[in-house]
C-alpha cells in the first residue's frame, strides 16, 4: 500500500518490517524521527523489538554489539558527529562480524555548527569495514533497510544505509509499504551460526596472534568482495518479490552518452531530470548512479565505462587537500584500464547547498566541453 512518508519514517517502517529484535540509539538531528517513530510503534504494540536507552552514540553501538553477539537482529541510527563518536565501535563491530544495520542520515561535520546534509560524515567511516549503500528516494530508504539486512546477514558484515538529511529525511512522498508476508519471504529470521550461546563457555575476539589477525582481515576482505555478488543476487530476489530492482551502479540513458554525470544520494534523482533536459537540448548526456560505496563496485565500473567517454563526478563531500571522495575512488578503480575515460571531479552542495538541475547541467557542460580541470577538484554552486 502506498503511503505518504518522510524519509525517516520510511526507514522506521523498514526496521519494523524487518522484525528487528533490538534498537539502541541516541537522538541527533536529522535522524531522531526514526527512533521516535520506532518508540511510538513499540508503544502501540506494532513493533515488538526491545529498545535499549543509552547516553551516547558510542554506547548505542556498544549495545547493538552486545545484542548482535547473541544473534539478535539489531539496529541503530545516527548522523554526523554522532557517527564520528561511534568510530572505534564501528571497527570492532565489523571485526567481530556482526550484521548490524545502521542508518546514517547525512549531516555535514562541524565546526562550524551545521545541520544540513553532506556525505563527509559517512564517507569518513570508509575504512571501518562497514558496507555503505546510498539512497535517492524514500522508497529506496525503506527497500535498502531490507536489502541491507539480507546482504549483511549473508556475509556477516555490518551495513550502513545512507541518505541525505532533510532533502530525504524530512521530505514526504508516497512510499509503497510492502506486505509483512512478502518481507518475511525476502528476509528470513536471522540464524547466526557464530552467535554466543549463553550455556556454553566461549570467549569472542580475544587476543589473536599476528598471523591469526592477518588471516581474519583477509577473510573480511574476501567476504566484503563477495558481498558485491550477494548484493546483486539480493537485488534480483527483491525484484521477484517486490517488483523493484536495485543494482550496485545504475546507469540512466548512457548508451550513446559522451559525458556521464556520476552522482549518489538524492542529487542522483535530480540528475535524472537534468539529463532529460540535456537530451532535449540535443546533448548526449547520461547518468551513473552510485548506490554502493563499500564494497566499491570497481569491476562493475570498469565494465561499464568506454574509452572516449567523460565522467563528471559530483561529490557532496570532500577529503581536505585532495578530492571529492567518490571521485578518488572512481579514479583508482579505473586506473588498471589501459585506456581510461577522462574523469572530472566536482564539489557541490557541501553543508546542504542545493544541487539543482541547473547546477548539474552546468557541471555536465564543464566536463563535456573540457572546461573543468581534470587534475583538481572543481568547486561549483548554484548562486541562488
Amino acid at each position, binding site marked *: 500500500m502506498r503511503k505518504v512518508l518522510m524519509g525517516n519514517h520510511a526507514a522506521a517502517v523498514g526496521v519494523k518490517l524487518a522484525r528487528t529484535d533490538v534498537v539502541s540509539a541516541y537522538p541527533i538531528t536529522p535522524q531522531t524521527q526514526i527512533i521516535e517513530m520506532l518508540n511510538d510503534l513499540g508503544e502501540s504494540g506494532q513493533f515488538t523489538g526491545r529498545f535499549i536507552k543509552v547516553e551516547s552514540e558510542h554506547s548505542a553501538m556498544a549495545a547493538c554489539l552486545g545484542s548482535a553477539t547473541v544473534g539478535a537482529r539489531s539496529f541503530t541510527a545516527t548522523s554526523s558527529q554522532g557517527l564520528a563518536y561511534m568510530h572505534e565501535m564501528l571497527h570492532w563491530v565489523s571485526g567481530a*562480524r556482526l550484521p548490524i544495520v545502521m542508518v546514517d542520515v547525512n549531516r555535514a561535520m562541524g565546526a562550524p555548527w551545521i545541520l544540513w546534509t553532506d556525505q563527509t560524515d559517512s564517507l569518513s567511516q570508509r575504512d571501518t569495514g562497514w558496507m555503505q549503500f546510498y539512497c535517492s528516494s524514500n522508497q529506496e530508504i525503506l527497500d535498502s533497510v531490507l536489502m541491507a539486512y539480507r546482504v549483511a546477514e549473508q556475509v556477516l558484515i555490518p551495513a550502513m544505509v545512507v541518505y541525505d538529511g532533510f532533502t530525504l529525511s524530512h521530505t514526504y512522498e508516497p512510499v509503497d509499504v510492502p506486505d509483512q508476508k512478502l518481507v518475511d519471504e525476502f528476509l528470513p529470521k536471522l540464524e547466526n551460526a557464530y552467535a554466543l550461546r549463553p550455556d556454553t*563457555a566461549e*570467549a*569472542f575476539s*580475544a587476543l589473536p596472534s599476528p598471523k591469526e589477525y*592477518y*588471516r581474519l582481515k*583477509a*577473510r573480511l576482505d574476501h*567476504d566484503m568482495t563477495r558481498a558485491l555478488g550477494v548484493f546483486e543476487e539480493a537485488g534480483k530476489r527483491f525484484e521477484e518479490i517486490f517488483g523493484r530492482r536495485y543494482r550496485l551502479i545504475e546507469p540512466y540513458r548512457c548508451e550513446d552518452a559522451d559525458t556521464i554525470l556520476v552522482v549518489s544520494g538524492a542529487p542522483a534523482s535530480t540528475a535524472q531530470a537534468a539529463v532529460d533536459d540535456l537530451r532535449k537540448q540535443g546533448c548526449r548526456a547520461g547518468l551513473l548512479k552510485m548506490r554502493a560505496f563499500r564494497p566499491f563496485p570497481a569491476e562493475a565500473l570498469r565494465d561499464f565505462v568506454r574509452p572516449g567517454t567523460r565522467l563528471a563526478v559530483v561529490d557532496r563531500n570532500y577529503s581536505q587537500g585532495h578530492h571529492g571522495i567518490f571521485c578518488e575512488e572512481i579514479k583508482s578503480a579505473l586506473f588498471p584500464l589501459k585506456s581510461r575515460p577522462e574523469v572530472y571531479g566536482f564539489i557541490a552542495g557541501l553543508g546542504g547547498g542545493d544541487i539543482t538541475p541547473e547546477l548539474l547541467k552546468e557541471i555536465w557542460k564543464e566536463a563535456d566541453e573540457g572546461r573543468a580541470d581534470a587534475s583538481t577538484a572543481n568547486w561549483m554552486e548554484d548562486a541562488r
Partner: protein
Amino acid sequence: MPRLAFDPEKTAPILISGRSMAENKTGIWRSIRPQIDKEKCTHCMVCWKYCPEACVDIASGIPEINMGYCKGCAICADVCPADCVEMVEEVAR
C-alpha cells in the same frame, strides 16, 4: 617471499575460543594487593560497588577479594570510608 597462502572459505570469520574468559586469571598482573582490616570494616559495601573487576564477594558480610582477578588497582582502598583497606606490596609468586 611467498604470498599469503590460505583458503578464505576455510578460515573462520571470527575468533572464538572454546575456553571461558573466566579461565584467564588476570590477577597475575597485580603488583600491590589490598589487605582488609576486618575489625575496622563497617560492611558498607562501597568497595563491592566500586570494584571495576567485580571481584569483591560480600556474601559473608565481610568483603572477600578474589585474588584470581584483582589487579591491585587500589580503588577499594581509595573509596573505603572506614579506611580499612591497605595496599601492600605483592610478594613474588
